């Protein structure tokens, strides 16, 4: 049983005469203790999906359960109690601008009726966790983006939630700060056992911290699985597009010779610091020619694809494929 279970979820918006479908037939579970990523292009419905996990938005049909309780069946006050078990952070941080850092962190405790002294103690602990102890009297406007997000994380953790929802939490941050926030989230996940749901459009975020990933496109889940598996060989079109940074299947146009076999190699940022093709040729002693290459650097990592023409000998073809598999390079034959 997942800590959050989503079943047949559909969300439609009424816009004058036509219905806009934001999400359709979404079903998946988020397991306790994992870091679950949801990736998709803008407009894919990610933010709507995450907002239904704490019922900030209500589904048109379908069910969202938290720890086995259907959120639709809860009274307002029960729902508010559940929300204290589900922290949330946002792209734009959403701190109280007119309130000091420490008061921002005590805010969720204050509205839960926890005494001032206890709240301050807890807030100081959390500010220590996010490494902002020296900023407790500052106001948010004096902080950098990364510091603001750390305050937001401390605030979201104040009520000791079981789940932390992150809605594009690193999208407004530079790569270095993103890295810091992600390691903080990982720390929160491991040390405090908080289940984390990450919504993002950045593949690198998923790759760095997530255990499992769901790929959302055009209101539906196109693909879901362990991050390792999905990254290695994405099955959906959108998955390939997001992971390889280019359209993999369709757009490459070259004249195939009849009877020849072509192999597509995908680089996902892990292996391109090695001269993989040169190594392959040296080790397998097989001659291949490059037919097409398209790689690019995305956030410091090389992603892309390479299409090679295989030797005619099927024995050699097998050697090449085996080599690639051993080296951790995804490859498949071009149809």
């Amino acid at each position, binding site marked *: 049983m997942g800590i959050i279970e989503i079943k047949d979820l559909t969300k439609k918006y009424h816009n004058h005469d036509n219905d806009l479908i934001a999400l359709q037939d979404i079903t998946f579970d988020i397991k306790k203790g994992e870091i679950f990523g949801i990736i998709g292009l803008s407009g894919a419905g990610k933010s709507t999906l995450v907002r239904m996990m704490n019922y*900030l938005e209500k589904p048109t049909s379908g069910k969202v359960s938290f720890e086995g309780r259907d959120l639709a069946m809860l009274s307002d006050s029960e729902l508010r109690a559940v929300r204290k078990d589900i922290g949330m952070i946002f792209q734009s941080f*959403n701190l109280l601008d007119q309130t000091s850092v420490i008061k921002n962190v005590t*805010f969720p405790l204050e509205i839960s009726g926890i005494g001032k002294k206890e709240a301050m103690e807890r807030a100081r602990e959390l500010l220590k966790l996010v490494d902002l102890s020296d900023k407790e009297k500052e106001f948010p406007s004096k902080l950098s983006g990364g510091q603001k997000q750390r305050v937001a994380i401390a605030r979201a953790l104040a009520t000791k939630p079981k789940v932390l929802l992150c809605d594009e939490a690193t999208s407004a941050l530079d790569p270095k700060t993103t890295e810091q926030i992600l390691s903080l989230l990982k720390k929160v996940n491991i040390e405090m056992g908080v289940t984390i749901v990450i919504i993002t459009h950045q593949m690198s975020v998923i790759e760095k911290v997530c255990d499992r990933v769901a790929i959302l496109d055009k209101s539906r889940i196109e693909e879901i699985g362990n991050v390792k598996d999905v990254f290695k060989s994405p099955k959906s079109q959108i998955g390939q597009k997001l992971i390889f940074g280019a359209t993999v299947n369709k757009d490459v146009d070259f004249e195939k010779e009849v009877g020849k076999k072509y192999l597509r190699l995908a680089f996902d940022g892990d292996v391109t610091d090695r001269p993989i093709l040169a190594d392959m040729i040296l080790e397998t002693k097989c001659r291949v020619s490059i037919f097409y290459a398209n790689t690019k650097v995305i956030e410091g990592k090389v992603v892309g694809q390479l299409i090679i023409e295989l030797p005619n000998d099927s024995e050699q073809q097998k050697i090449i494929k085996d080599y690639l598999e051993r080296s951790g390079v995804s490859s498949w034959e071009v149809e």
Partner: protein
Amino acid sequence: MVDLNLYIVAIKETFFMTLLSSAISYIIGIPLGVLLYSTAKDGLTPNTYVYNTLSLVVNIFRSIPFLILLILVLPITKVIVGTTIGAKAVVPPLVISASPYIARMVESSLKEVDFGVIEAAKSMGATNMQIITKVLLKESRPSLFIGAAISITTILGYSAMAGAVGGGGLGDVAIRYGYYRYNQEVMLITVVLLVIIVQLLQSIFMGIARKSDKRL
């Protein structure tokens, strides 16, 4: 030469009318403004019926010229303060006129609060009441003070109009001595005094607004 004492009494009366009316108007206007904000289409508890009704009432009161309202509510004034002349008697019409105006000012200040912050509070399990008192009214404080500067100086302007019906204050002096007796000197002095008071109130409230804004 008009007695200096006359001006002092008039200034006192003007301040009395303006500040008392403003205070009462805010006591009425803040809840009204919150109600307008909350029941609006994208508010905390959207309610088209309540919003439209309230909005209509507010607009009706705002469209009645103050001088007309002053006379229209005379019976009510009589009941509340027991008289229809003097500075005291101007307070009820000022409040009736200013409260809807302030309600709109408050509504617009609350609308400036970033929706994301409200969403964050909701995600923490805050009740609507907590969102109003601890998020909306707090986050919009600088804007509320700027609104107060505008509202109070407007009320001051209205209070001067009350002179037309013997309401006391600087407006009263301006009309009785300056206009009816055609004493240009009195006219000029009262106008200058009014300008100074408006400047004073405006800069005090803008100062508070600036000081209270932690974003700066």
